[in-house]
């Protein structure tokens, strides 16, 4: 049967959309900036016929006329939905427009046109309070042991990245009452770093000024502030100039299933003057476990194609798994050994996996592998530049219990200091970077990785857990963070990003002191000091083996 003509009941009402534009006719000057800047073209200039009230004489004499008026209209096309990014608000000279979140949205019912599942960037859309944010630091030193002064006392806010030999195996001999290290014995490389790292976000996924800003900030932190922050490269290689510079020691090149950029890295080896901080072998990512990477063709411009060693303008898909994988021993042990060998066993090499119930199996494999330098676990709240919404929202394991299980398993084996665990995924999700990092450290992490947080703090990324913006996959990032379009990334200043990176880490260091000082900890990072934590949720307390408080 034919539907009624005139009203198309298959149209999507604006009330189904995730964000609804609030536009104020009385304030709008019709300058057109908002419509020009909207990344999804969700708003358009339009004309409408309507009754207008006018009074043009010397005394008020209102008359009504029918006229044509210019307005800003939100389109009801699901492919041009308002993402709530708010760029329109930013450019509006007269505070005339703002997107408003619509909690009754039916977005996911509609965003599958053409049988194509919804894909996006960002992280899991879950605005509820995370487990990490529920944890409190409840062991406060006061009288039985005086609290320390975060501003006056010395604090050691550093961690170790790399395999620590068991004390019983350190090749030491006693000579004249002193300990001497025996010559020609293998000692795994270990780096002393700041316990918060910038996780792997690729050049390609990030715009040139964003990556450059992060890199500059990290370098400044190391060289000027003497805070040894390290940063992951993500998949896709590292610019040749950086590879051959002395600054590569602050970076962790990542090798992932697409092996993009690795030919270039291997060829740069003879010209490298410093070793990288570490090498990360990516087996999984918290945001999209079991998925490979994908860099869309329109992001593969000249610079990216050179770094990755691929032609310009083609989709770069990394498979979900390393194609050389036959068994865990093949995948992990052999890759770790081969990559270690490339740098003469001077560089820590470790795998990164997504949070999973099977993390313990990987962990135990690594615990037995003397060349494995660490394990990085990326929980379900990890971010990404591009993934299926279903993967982002529903796949993966929360980091807190995954990390805790792994740490306690190492404790059971007495190997908790041999194999450091780095925890990622949702650290600083609600802005509490230092507190989340400290919680994970007290649960047993040697350090944490951040991605989304640094994009939000250093470059003002609009993304949040109400699916705001999250256009990273389309190359249309209105902030210029995740795009290769010069018209967009010119909005971002690498210098300002670098400055904010420095702000973030200096603040985090002070806040970590403010957490550790009242707990009476200063001479070592309190890894596994779970007696310092409490939570007012009995189930979480039981699961994490920490105290229940109320």
């Amino acid at each position, binding site marked *: 049967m034919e539907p009624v003509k005139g009203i198309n009941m298959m149209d999507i009402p604006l009330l189904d959309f995730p964000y609804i534009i609030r536009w104020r006719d009385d304030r709008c000057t019709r300058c057109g900036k908002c419509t020009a800047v909207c990344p999804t073209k969700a708003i358009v200039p339009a004309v409408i016929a309507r009754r207008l009230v006018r009074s043009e004489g010397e005394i008020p004499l209102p008359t009504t006329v029918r006229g044509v008026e210019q307005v800003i209209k939100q389109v009801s096309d699901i492919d041009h939905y308002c993402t709530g990014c708010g760029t329109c608000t930013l450019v509006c000279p007269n505070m005339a427009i703002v997107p408003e979140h619509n909690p009754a949205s039916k977005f996911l019912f509609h965003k599958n046109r053409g049988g194509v599942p919804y894909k996006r960037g960002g992280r899991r859309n879950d605005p509820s309070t995370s487990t990490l944010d529920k944890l409190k630091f409840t062991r406060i030193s006061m009288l039985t042991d005086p609290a320390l002064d975060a501003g006056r006392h010395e604090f050691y806010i550093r961690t170790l990245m790399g395999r620590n*030999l068991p*004390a019983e195996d350190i090749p030491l001999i*006693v000579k004249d009452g*002193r*300990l001497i290290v025996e010559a020609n014995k293998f000692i795994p490389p270990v780096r002393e770093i700041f316990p918060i790292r910038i996780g792997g976000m690729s050049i390609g996924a990030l715009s040139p000024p964003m990556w450059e800003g992060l890199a500059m900030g990290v370098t400044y932190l190391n060289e000027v502030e003497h805070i040894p922050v390290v940063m992951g490269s993500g998949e896709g290689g590292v610019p040749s100039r950086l590879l051959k510079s002395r600054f590569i020691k602050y970076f962790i090149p990542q090798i992932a299933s697409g092996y993009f950029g690795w030919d270039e890295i291997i060829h740069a080896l003879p010209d490298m003057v410093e070793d990288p901080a570490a090498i990360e072998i990516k087996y999984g990512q918290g945001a999209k476990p079991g998925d490979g990477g994908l860099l869309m063709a329109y992001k593969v411009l000249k610079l990216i194609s050179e770094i990755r060693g691929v032609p310009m303008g083609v989709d770069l898909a990394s498979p979900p798994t390393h194609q050389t994988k036959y068994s865990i021993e093949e995948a992990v042990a052999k890759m770790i050994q081969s990559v270690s060998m490339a740098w003469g066993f001077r560089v820590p090499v470790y795998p990164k996996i997504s949070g999973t119930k099977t993390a313990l199996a990987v962990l135990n494999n690594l615990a037995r592998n003397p060349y494995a330098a660490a394990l990085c676990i990326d929980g379900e709240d990890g971010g990404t530049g591009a993934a299926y919404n279903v993967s982002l929202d529903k796949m993966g394991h929360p980091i807190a219990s995954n990390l805790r299980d792994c740490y306690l398993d190492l404790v059971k084996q007495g190997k*908790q*200091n041999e194999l450091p665990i780095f925890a990622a995924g949702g650290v600083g999700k609600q802005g509490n970077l230092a507190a989340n990092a400290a919680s994970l450290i007290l649960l047993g992490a040697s350090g944490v990785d951040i991605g989304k947080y640094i994009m939000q703090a250093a470059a003002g990324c609009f993304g949040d857990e109400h699916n705001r913006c999250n256009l990273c996959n389309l190359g249309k990032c209105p902030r210029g963070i995740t795009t290769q379009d010069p018209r967009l990334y010119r909005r971002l200043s690498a210098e300002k990003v670098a400055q904010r990176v420095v702000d973030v880490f200096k603040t985090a260091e002070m806040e970590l002191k403010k957490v550790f000082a009242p707990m009476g*900890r200063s001479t070592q990072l309190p890894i596994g*000091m779970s*007696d310092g934590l409490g939570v007012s949720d009995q189930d979480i307390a039981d699961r994490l083996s920490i105290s229940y408080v109320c």
Partner: protein
Amino acid sequence: MCRLSAITADKYFSVMDNIRALDTMKEGHDGSGLGFVLKDLGGDFKDLKEYPILSGICTDSGRRKLDDYMKQAGFKVKFMWEPQICEKAGSSVVKRGHYLTTAYQYPDEYINRSQDEKEALLTKTRLRLRDEGLKNNSLYIFSFWPDIITMKEVGDPLEVGEFFGLDKKPLTAKIAMAQGRQNTNYAIDLYACHPFFLQGYCTMTNGENTAFVPNRDYLLRRNFPGYRNYKSDSEIFCHTLHFVHKRLGYPLRYYKDVITPLTNNEIDGRSDAEALRLIKKSLRPLCIDGPNCVIGFMPDGSVFMLQDSKKLRPGIVGGTTGHYGLMSEECGLDQAVPKRKREDDIFPMRYDFVVISPNAKEVQVWNQLKG
């Protein structure tokens, strides 16, 4: 806060010297208990050096349990000593049962065994008896080792000393470590009372170790049966000393490098920097934190004092050749070793490791920065 009193001498002295020193430091502790460990014993024990002495407290049923176990294990009683309990009206001390100080002869099959095997047997026996005793609180075992006596009880230290009749029938030794407080931060548990002893190593601490949980978790899995049953965060200090010195074979001075490691820049100044860097990394979980003054003795009779890395607790060492005191406070030292050159007193600071050699021959101050 705890108050500590250690004396080392080349002649036997009464542990009452320590207790009286604790009494002068009374303002600094709450008089809630006394624990002491004696080494290189005099008096009746002078000629029993090779016989392990079991120290503890038991009820009648605990005593039967103990006797049965020891008999079955092949230990034979060599000598028994019991304090002459003196219960006074108004005293804070309540008699708990029998106070055991019994020297045993090794089982026949162990007499010619190696030292390691004998030590393992003593540790295993002590732990087994402790476990048995805990089932109904009928038996507390503090130490089982040759030439060592340990006593612990709740109450004002001086009153506890008099309760044990030590003022009338003294227990003498050449090394005595006493601590004047129960662990009143938590419910009182005799096993939480300092000093702590393990296989010839003994420490007592004035402070609180905020790194207890990581320390404990590390020691628990070091495949040594003695590292367990932690009732106090301070027990860690003794077991870490044992681990570092006996298990790892490091010289004593590295104990400080493990529990209060230097900064990287400071390590660079040491001639053994390469080894220190590795130790700092591999023994990271044994680093202590919080305010702590640690006093201890070694199997060879050396006695030491060191401070936490911020020097947050008091401590003083002073005396003359053949007679030294290591105390929390100067008034305690004045009481225990009045005849000394006060200008030679040492107040160990954050880098200092004060060691008095066996028989109180000489005192050395090792500076951690110099190694």
